[in-house]
């Protein structure tokens, strides 16, 4: 079994990364130096003005490490990938499937099924743990909408229906998402999902954690040689990682959303850790970003039982497993794509 390795997140501006033997050397602007052996890492994510020597990039490529460059606030800019990834036969099979409406709908249904089931599981878990502190009736209503969607997804659906179900489930879920926030701080009031730019602290956290998730999912897809751009549910749009977005759906509720909720509810992030710009856009400060990165990294180490393979594994490996299962489904080795159902 593949090992879960660490991702190196570099947020200090002006940092320079270089290669020394088998190590990444991280030199911050004030001259501080850290070293990390390449073999304990599975990726490097650079935020903002972080420089990498070409030799380090080449070495990472060879070792199968994904290096990503994001803006300081977490928007994806560019990625450097080594020469190994990319199996042309697998990609061809993927493109053929993506061109086939029936097959695409089949895969989209599996992806949506897990998103619906996992969103519902998050709401149910909240009712179980905090039933007395939340608006249980409203959450209960959302659960029944999701029940209904789940019921309909038990039958094959076409692409329009799959998308319709996705929209309905997401609307019901985000309508009550704010009820799961137990913090009194008005900075964490949630009025619905918005992005680019996020207009409140909760959306700012959600967007940032989704970016981290996207990076990991995308690297996992690239590592198995499948094209992260060409999705089934998310159709092609230049620059959009369609398949990465597809594969993210199942992880959003229980991995990303619950992480945001627990950061807020356990007061690990505070309202004062967010800045509002003139435009209304809200950004988190450096300390808050570090708290989120650490929590993300820690969450990936939690062990879970893989519902399909019936093996225990750290959550962070689930991206790789799902990417492989997707490749399996694309090649027709499996009779469909088995998504990750969270219980």
């Amino acid at each position, binding site marked *: *079994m*593949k090992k879960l390795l660490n991702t190196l997140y570099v947020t200090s501006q002006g940092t320079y990364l270089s290669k020394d033997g088998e190590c990444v050397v991280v030199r911050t602007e004030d001259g501080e130096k850290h070293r990390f052996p390449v073999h304990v890492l599975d990726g490097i994510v650079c935020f903002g003005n972080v420089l990498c020597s070409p030799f380090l990039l080449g070495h990472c490529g060879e070792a199968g490490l994904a290096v990503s460059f994001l803006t300081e606030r977490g928007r994806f800019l560019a990625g450097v990938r080594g020469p*190994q*990834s*990319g*199996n042309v*036969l*697998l990609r061809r099979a993927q493109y053929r499937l993506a061109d086939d409406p029936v097959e695409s709908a089949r895969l989209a249904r*599996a992806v949506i*099924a*897990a998103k*619906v*089931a996992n969103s519902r599981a998050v709401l149910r878990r909240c009712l179980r743990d905090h039933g007395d502190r939340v608006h249980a009736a409203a959450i209960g209503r959302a659960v029944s909408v999701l029940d209904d969607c*789940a*019921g309909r*997804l*038990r039958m094959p659906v076409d692409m329009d229906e799959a998308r319709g179900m996705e929209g309905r489930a997401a609307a019901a879920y985000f309508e009550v998402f704010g009820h799961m926030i137990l913090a009194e701080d008005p900075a964490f009031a949630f009025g619905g999902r918005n992005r680019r730019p996020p207009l409140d602290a909760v959306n700012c956290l959600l967007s940032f954690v989704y970016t981290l998730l996207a990076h990991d999912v995308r690297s996992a897809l690239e590592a*198995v*040689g499948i094209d992260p751009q060409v999705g089934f549910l998310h159709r092609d749009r230049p620059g959009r990682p369609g398949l990465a977005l597809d594969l993210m759906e199942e992880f959003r509720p229980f991995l990303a959303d619950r992480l945001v909720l627990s950061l807020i509810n356990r007061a690990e992030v505070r309202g004062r850790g967010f800045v509002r710009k003139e435009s209304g856009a809200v950004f988190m400060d450096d300390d808050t970003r570090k708290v989120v990165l650490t929590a993300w990294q820690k969450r990936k180490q939690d062990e879970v039982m893989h*519902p*399909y*393979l*019936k*093996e225990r594994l750290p959550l962070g490996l689930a991206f790789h*497993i799902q990417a*492989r*299962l997707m*490749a*399996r*489904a694309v*090649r027709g*080795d*499996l*009779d*469909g*794509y*088995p*998504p990750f*159902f969270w219980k």
Partner: protein
Amino acid sequence: MDQTLPLSALQHYLYCPRQCALIHVEKVWEENRFTAEGRLLHLRADSGATGRRGGIAEDRSVPLRSDRLGLYGVADVVELRPGPDGRERPYPVEYKRGSPKVEDWDRVQLCAQAMCLEEMLGVTIPEGAIFYGKPRRRERVVFEKVLRVLVEKACGDMHAMIEGGEVPPAEVGKRCRGCSLAGACMPGASARVESYLLKGLE
């Protein structure tokens, strides 16, 4: 044959055709302790170009190739031993970390090396040896007809599989436990997806 494959592919193919396909069709590669140690052992064998050992001349890291078998690779050591006609004859020696196996894999691979050398040099090579690290022992291998037929057949089947872009399904067995690609192979992934989906949607 469209392409030549490394000799190690043959070794993988004999161990498990799916393993070979995962590496050469799907291009997965996962290093584990065994492959890492294997590489170190090879590095040691690589440490010089030519030399003598106990009066026998030897070449180390000898490049190999056979168009007929569609193979290329490197022999750890090729000793030059005097033949019956007094001329020097190549004698391939392969270094293995583990212990001798009941199966024929190592012998087939060594025989394939010999067949490459034969094609390159236009000679006949009747035998070679495998050095096992555990226990530290040399084993003689005679390149008899049956072994040569096995090499030809395995090469043909392997090339057909890889050129067809085919990845055979997992045949779960004892060898999966020692398989460095089990993580990528997921031999356990065979349950019906539709019933799994229905259960998840309950």
